[in-house]
């Protein structure tokens, strides 16, 4: 169009935008998890923009990242527009599920990380029960995949990273415009050697152990 201000068209497989939200609590690797999705898009020549809110994340606050694949360089997504929501924590999944579209996919790492007890003591609300969380997430025909932290890792790795495990599960939903192997390649390129094996193991863990709680397990956006 011109020299300085350029506008990129979508990739060759341009069939409309895919909106992704990745949320959790500071320290859970939310930004890195979302980055791996965006890095995969860049690798594959898919247009991507990602928005991060991490002002006070280090101090135990909520971290929210959103991105648009194959759409405007916007990063932000509107109410009820996310095609897939990934969450490293169940309460944060529930807090963010207003972003998720009807019929969208939600993938949650089910290990709870309650807010500081000091907050809870002063708060009139309590941490919702597992049943409340699952019911809330599955409203509007949303398809829910859960990952339990107590599942045995087949690879025998002691620690499973929630963020990369969620990516492995997300690959099963069929919403992302790329698959398990593409994510695996990105992890190999982006992460340092010391972190590589355990994250690849977590990715496999996510693919193996994610359980779909919805009746319709078919992938793809509706």
């Amino acid at each position, binding site marked *: *169009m*011109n*020299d*300085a*201000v*350029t*506008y*990129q068209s979508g990739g060759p497989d341009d069939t409309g*935008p895919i909106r992704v939200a990745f949320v959790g*609590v500071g320290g859970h690797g939310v930004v890195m998890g979302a*980055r791996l999705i965006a*890095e995969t898009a*860049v690798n594959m020549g898919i247009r*991507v*923009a*990602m*928005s*991060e*809110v*991490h*002002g*006070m994340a*280090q*101090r*135990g*606050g*909520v971290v929210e990242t959103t*991105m*648009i694949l194959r*759409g*405007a*360089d*916007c*990063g*932000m*997504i*509107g*109410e*009820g527009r996310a095609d897939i929501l990934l969450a490293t924590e169940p*309460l*944060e999944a*529930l*807090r963010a599920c*207003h972003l998720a579209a009807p019929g969208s996919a939600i993938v949650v790492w089910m290990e709870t990380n*309650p*807010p*500081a*007890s*000091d*907050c*809870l*003591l*002063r*708060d009139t*609300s*309590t*941490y*919702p029960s597992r049943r409340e969380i699952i019911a809330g997430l599955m409203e509007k025909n949303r398809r829910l995949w859960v990952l339990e932290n107590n599942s045995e890792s087949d690879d025998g790795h002691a620690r499973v990273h929630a963020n990369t495990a969620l990516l492995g599960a997300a690959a099963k939903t069929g919403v992302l415009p790329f698959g398990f192997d593409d994510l695996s390649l990105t992890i190999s390129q*982006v992460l*340092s050697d010391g972190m590589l094996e355990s994250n690849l193991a977590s990715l496999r863990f996510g693919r193996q152990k994610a359980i779909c709680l919805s009746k319709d397990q078919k992938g793809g956006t509706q």
Partner: protein
Amino acid sequence: MSSLLNLERRTLLLGDEAVARGALEAGLGAFSTYPGTPASEIGDSLAGISEEAGIFFEYAVNEIIAVETVIAFSLSGYRSMAAMKHVGLNVAADAFMTFPYLGVGGGAVIVTADDPGCHSSQNEQDNRHFARMAQVPMIEPSSPREACLLTKRAFELSEEVHLPVLLRLTTRIAHMRGPVDPAPLPTTRIGAREFKRDPMNRVMVPSVARLRHAEVIRMLENAALIADSPEFHGVSEGDSDLGIIAVGHGRNLVESALSDLGLNGRVGFLELAFTYPFPERTIADFLKRHRRVLVVEELTPFMEDAIAAIAHRRGCDTRIFGKHTGHFSELGELNPDLVTNAVADLTCARKSTTTEIVYADDSHESQTRSTGLPQRRPSLCPGCPHRATYLMTRQAIGAETIVATDIGCYTLGLFPPLGMGDLQVCMGGSVSLGAALAAAIDQPVAAFIGDSTFFHAGIPGLINAVSHRRRLMLVVMDNLTTAMTGYQPHPGSPADGHRRVMIEDVAAACGADSVMTVDPNDVRSAMDAISTAWDSNGVSVVVMRSPCARQALRDGLVERRPPVRIDNGGPDNLGRNACSQCTTCIEMTGCPALHLEKGARGPEVIQDLCTGCGLCITVCPNGAIVPDE
């Protein structure tokens, strides 16, 4: 992860990183900054590579020093850049306003990162007005890709018009991640590296300033011609009478909305990246082709008012929509729903089911749901020395004492249970606010400031308090780093190539009546120091020094102490009083490492979080918390 110096192919970069990369591609010679969200990552991404790149790099004590440093380097022939958050430009304004009078040698770019929505700031001022006030050109990128290209271009522009250029980001651009196509880095440096003596143009006495101001106006007219150049705007035509003009992040949201509403090709769209001087010819041409124009921008109607003025001057009766017509607010950030709704309102777009965005009941549901969920408030980290300082100081000064506080991690002491904060406004403000309050009211007053903030803007207030014989206790909370923005060093940080400046030496030299330095983890000594300072007349300064717990653990500066143990009276009872489940430990400290499970027998220690600092040991009325030895 590859360094910004070694990008070979399309790379995903943060907006801030893209600015840094663009500066490197322009042959950046000097950089200075004071960290502040959302601009911090510009400096942080250059800090580690400046030596390799041969760039002068400095974490300045504050933003005006960063701009003054840029002035000196620019006039010496270096391409120079300073970066700061929006309120940082307030601090730098004295230098920034007169900078254009001096002109530039090497291109000079001042980056301001605004924070619509106050994600991490005390206000949401619109710094575009600074460009107009200082009469300098302004560039606003809308993505990392543009941030890189336009930063590079801004250096050239600065040299073309002999003026510093304001590069304005907002949080959503600074913290947007997107692909950037790197251009080669220059192999040779630009600039003569010599200060040419020219006092009749460089010493701003009134007689010089008057002449130089005329030159600024002349240069700005040249800039206005460049502002209309097609490289700085994009325009797409529509077949309806409606056009949209957007800047910054608004451009992305409009693109998204037009696509969602199926209006591509229906609505004309003018995207502007050169936003001061206003690209008047471009705007006028666009106005002539549209009977109605919607202006999409965040915060104040900066462009909207300019566009209305241009329409008036050109005798153009295009109706202008935006803030003044209630389509947008001056509050907060724009988001996809706000922009889509405004565009839909003006196009009467029938939203199909796939583009239906806000279901009224949905938004109600999400509101009620979000208020029904427990909040996750940011808090001081486990082991944070500020928690100990606040707890014991409140004990010494009493519940009625008014607390003037400042900007940094320790501002979080505002929240319960610590409740340490009654007044806060700006960097360094605690000292002068505290001293003035002490003169204004009969209630007791104490002031709290962080280490980096003390150096940044606290010192003049301290001298003022001493000089005017105020009575004030000032607690300087020294965790040896600028923790809130990502652990950048300050003059009092343990020396790492710089000469260390000690806060207590500065306080003594300012004439404080007493200066004490204590470790807040040493509760007895710290309590003594606080009590002594609180009871004394004049200005007393207590430096509470203990490294940031999180940084110390992260960088391996200290060995992690084992978590404390709560004796719950079980089989391994130590023969002391067991936990009475009173939850005093949680209620007094608010430490995130203490957890009370619903229906549990008492608080438990979260092993992964506890740093073993032992503060809870000192508050437990039963002596039931013990160090794990």
